């Protein structure tokens, strides 16, 4: 993300420029959706989570202090919205739904589909915190000490969680 560009867009968005906000969103929208999808496991919940996060972002972007921090801040809001979603899901339905990621079956090989199925299973076996950390690093591209600062956790804890999660995923894939 071009820092200068982001800065300018954020400033405009802060003052109500919805188009500028739209451009900011357009820079990361796919990754945001993927994050929510891997986190919650199904399309409807992911859609809801992204939608909520976007509304929260637009309504509070005025107070975003550092314009260059848009991406990290957006992920933060999305994370919160996914967590909230998870809570209501668990309370309401008592189960998570991992019913497929709406893949284009004609493009993927059966091996890839198999991998995908195993992946959801593995992600499901992670705790929400581990899932969040893995997704922040794999989808969001953050390093472990950056994640530590985002989540207000000691970096040792994040690294341990990352290791544990990678381990669990690794065994499932080996």
């Amino acid at each position, binding site marked *: 993300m071009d*820092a200068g560009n982001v800065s300018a867009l954020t400033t405009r968005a802060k003052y*109500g420029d*919805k188009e500028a*906000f739209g*451009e900011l969103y357009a820079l990361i*929208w796919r990754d945001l*959706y*993927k994050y929510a*999808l891997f986190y919650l496991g199904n*399309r409807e919940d992911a859609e809801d989570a992204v*939608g909520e996060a*976007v*509304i929260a972002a637009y*309504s*509070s972007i*005025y*107070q*975003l*202090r*550092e314009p*260059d*921090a848009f991406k990290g*801040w957006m*992920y*933060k*809001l999305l994370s919160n919205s996914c967590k909230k979603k998870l809570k209501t899901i668990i309370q309401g339905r008592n*189960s*998570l739904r*991992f019913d497929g*990621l*709406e893949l284009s079956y004609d493009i*993927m090989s059966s091996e*890839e589909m198999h*991998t*995908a199925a195993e992946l959801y299973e593995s992600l*499901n*076996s*992670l*705790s*929400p*915190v581990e899932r969040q950390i893995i997704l922040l690093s*794999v*989808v969001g591209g953050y*390093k*472990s000490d*950056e994640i530590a*600062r985002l989540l207000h*956790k*000691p970096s*040792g804890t994040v*690294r*341990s969680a*990352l290791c*544990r999660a*990678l381990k*669990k*995923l690794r*065994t*499932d894939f*080996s």
Partner: protein
Amino acid sequence: MNENNHNIDKEIEELKSTLAPISENIKPPFSVTPAKLEEKLEGVAQNRTIFTTPLFKKAARGILACAVSLTIVAGSVMTYQASQNKALIKEGDKNVSIAGDYKRLYQSIEKLKKTNTKKFEDARDVLIGSGDAYNESFQDQSVKPSTATTTTTTKTAGYGKTNTQVADVDEGDILKNDGKYLYFLSGTNNKNGITTTEAYVAPDLARYGYSVSSRSSKMLKIISAGETGKMQLLATVKFDGDFQPEEMYLSEDNVILVGQTVTQKKVKVETSTAKTDAPPSIEPATAKDLITYPAYTGSAVDPNSAVSNETGTNASSAADDGTTNVDKTSVSTGAASSSGAEPAISTKEVPPSRDTLTEKTTVPEQYYSVTETKTTVQVYDVSVKMNPRLLHTYSQDGGYLSSRMTGTKLYLVSNHYIGDVLNKITQRNIINYVPKTCLDKGRNTPIPAEDIAMVNNSTETNYAVISGIDTETMKTSKKAVLGSGDTIYATTDNLYVACYRYKQNPASSSQKSVSGSYTSVLRFSLPQEIKFTGSCDISGNILNKYSMDETDGLFRIATTTDVYGYTFSRFNNVFVLDQNLKITGSVENLAEGETIKSVRFMGKTAYVVTFRQTDPLFAIDLSVPSKPKVLGELKIPGFSEYLHPVDETHLLGVGVAGNEQGQTGGVKLSLFDVSNPKAPREAFQYNLPGSSSSSYIGTDPKSFLYDAERGIIGIPATINGLSDSKNYSTYVTNFNVLCFIQLNLKTGFTPLFDMANTAPVKDEQSTYYRLSNDTILRGTYIGDAVYSVSEGYIISASITEKKRLGVLSLGDETERVFTKGDGFTGQPIVSLDPKSWSVENDQVLYPYGYAK
């Protein structure tokens, strides 16, 4: 505690590439495309709320408070005794130098500003209303005593202790055992994959647009236990404010908790009328420029003031709001002497006249939110187990790195990050950004420049802060280093702080630049007062704390060096250093292309496991410090992640099995016979059952349990590929257990039994029952009883009789639903009666058998 960053990065890359084909095929639905965005935002208003404070009175109080405290603090600083720094390093030492005064410290900070042009997206600088606000006045120290009586055993049975690296040096852990009571810090990990949360609204902040926040709850549970396996929950301690304990120690009748406190503070936006421009002549910062800080707990700044002034009321601007601390930056803009009491106040500041004050206060003040992280210690008296009492609180700036404890002395290390405020630091205000410490209700005191050292050529925008605290007297000794740390190693005499660093040699015209990893090590002497006694730079980087050792006064360290140039090369080394931290001897270029997986120093020998496709276990003789040499090598498939000395001629390795092609599999135990170090051999091995298995012992060696007396090993693991022998569905394929294995040096490994922290849970929507299956965090023992500890339960069993003795539920909910995947339609799978969970084929303590 610290895993090789490089390995993690590599794994992430691999995961990314596995994910890539799936990820590319994800088609986001139309509703989340940017095209639909505007529609979604229709009618959404932007929240432009900013904080405003009541006008004149508040400002006046603030100024009064700071004027008074300036006098007092200035006084105390001038009488501060500069500690006798008997450092072995001299001023001309090329690695590190002592700051001595803040001017020199500022020169290092200036260098950092120049080298740190990379802007880090600091999402910590959280906006108001993002949902991360914490209620600062939240206090809940509820202690829930149990009504039942405790059971005590009068015999002193052997009991499990934390698996520490060095004898006599204790390490913090989430589980502690004193032979009669178990102390467990729950909430550290998640229960059954569901984060326990407490949601609450900060009433004061709600009117400013803060929303409901939630955070995970950590609790200390004190449980009576014994050889009979009977347990009673005696007390539950919750923690106030934002203190999140990570681990704990036991000392005398105290439980000492160590962790982090993260608070949100309001910081005033510097308005254009604020005095931020310094006049051309820059004077070195002195004690007179000290800014006082309000006490950590937010209590009033010193109200005792003989100086009369306008309001004469309690000098605390925290009064109205109730939730905010006095903000720091506003003090600097308004800092002034009171009526001539301290003429030494910087002459650059114009004492605000009444008129100026009135002028200023017509501008509404704006605030933004800033996150502050401190490492905190809380000492509780548990002489009466059912009534733990908080005795003392100590905190130091920075995120918690690690700690050690010898006797009653606690050594605490944290990293204080200044990267986000680097550009705000000036010659004059540098002391505001120096790490501070605070004891109980005292003031936040900055660490004096004489106790701050600077690592030369460091690009770390971090202070490592080291404190030594006597938990009986609460006397403390502190040092700070500009340059951080990521792993520590301690003996009873010395503390070593290591930091991963990376050097890039600039490219010359003829060749590509060469860059490589190295480690900076700082040494501090213990135990009375912490003193800086030396440092060194070592080629390569370490794996974890086991990569370092000090024996007979000599420091030894094992590293993996990565060199990036025309080609990438990797090799491993063991260095021996003398008392001046100069290298006396080394083995270098070992196992080229491989990386260290585990290290154990045992007296005069070092055992190093490297791995790429096979696991060479190297035995390295260190008896002659100037001539370490490789004695022997053992090549076997797989690798050990953790090495445990059994006796002088045997080493136990816990790790990962593998085959000749370098593929890795499940958890494997190896007993290495090193009686002939020239030819180490694998005497016995044992693989955990299931189609595959994993354990996190590599990253959490404290999870390893070993009773040397009886030769009993306990390892938490996840076993995959289990099938239900009772012919029900096989949906549950990953099973978390604590495996108990007997080790006999002559006959090898014998599996005893596995414990699973399971309990049947009723699905509210149906008659189906499922098993909860917590990750086992720790295992311990008291005499014949073993205890497996998870977030939801502590379960005890008898080693000799191989049966469960008791189950203690730690959950608040008596019924929880655990779901796994989709469409679980199994029949009732277990009887609710725990007595029916018997042993079958020496395997079972939980209802599932599994295929071997």
